[in-house]
């Protein structure tokens, strides 16, 4: 395995996540796709940390912060989705048009 493999895997995973974000209609499934994209970024960070960084830990530290923010994001987003479901009876993103003009 080389840096090239890592980058290609990361790109493919990111693109699949992007497709999920754009095409899915259920808010929870969109959130899962966002997790895929964040994981793609982590793979890239770890790859660069292992292959090019002389200090070797910078990428890992950044990945730890990415994971932290991802955990916070999932918690908050799921709370918002639960509240939406309670108020509107749906988690279908096509029908959630509260903030549309």
């Amino acid at each position, binding site marked *: 395995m080389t840096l090239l493999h890592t980058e290609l895997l990361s790109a493919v995973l990111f693109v699949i996540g992007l497709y999920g974000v*754009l*095409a899915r209609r259920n808010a929870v499934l969109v959130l*899962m796709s966002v997790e895929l994209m964040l994981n793609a970024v982590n*793979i890239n960070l*770890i790859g660069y940390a292992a292959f090019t960084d002389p200090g070797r*830990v910078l990428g890992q530290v950044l990945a730890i912060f990415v994971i932290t923010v991802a955990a916070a994001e999932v918690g908050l987003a*799921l709370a918002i989705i639960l509240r939406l479901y309670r108020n509107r009876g749906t988690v279908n993103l096509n029908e959630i048009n*509260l903030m549309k003009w």
Partner: protein
Amino acid sequence: MGSLIAYSFLAALIVGGALGVVTSRNVAHAALFLLTTLAAVAGIFILSLAEFLALVQVLIYGGAITIVLLFALMLTRLEEFSNVRDNTQWPMAIIASVALLVVLVGAIFASRPSGAALRGASFQEVGTQLFTKWAVPFEVASLVLLVALVGAFLLARGGGNPGDDGIRDGGNRS
């Protein structure tokens, strides 16, 4: 050579699981595909000699986030739970995704990534850096987690009276 075989296997698991997440009709199956992908990403971390990240990945993603996502799925159970439909804009989504993939792969090959030999960082090195050079961002991250925790709790808790749960939706209730 052995690491390349393991890497290919894990990459296939990751891509297959990710495709399952974005195409599965059943929401619960999508969550299980996501678990496969996250576990395989932990394997990639081990192959990249980042053992600490692999542990964190299994604990936080495999343990916490997947469980929380499954909880949300169960709590927002819909009639179309086992046969969820996609947006009508999915052809556009495919076009956009493939276009981005072409751009990314082109950029990767144009940049000709070349790395030195694979080198990992021990737990000790990561911990030392995290608590010396990165101590302030670390504390800020813990603050972010605390704020998110309190915010999620307040949002999800609901209000006192049924029907009046604290957030007005502008009389637009449908």
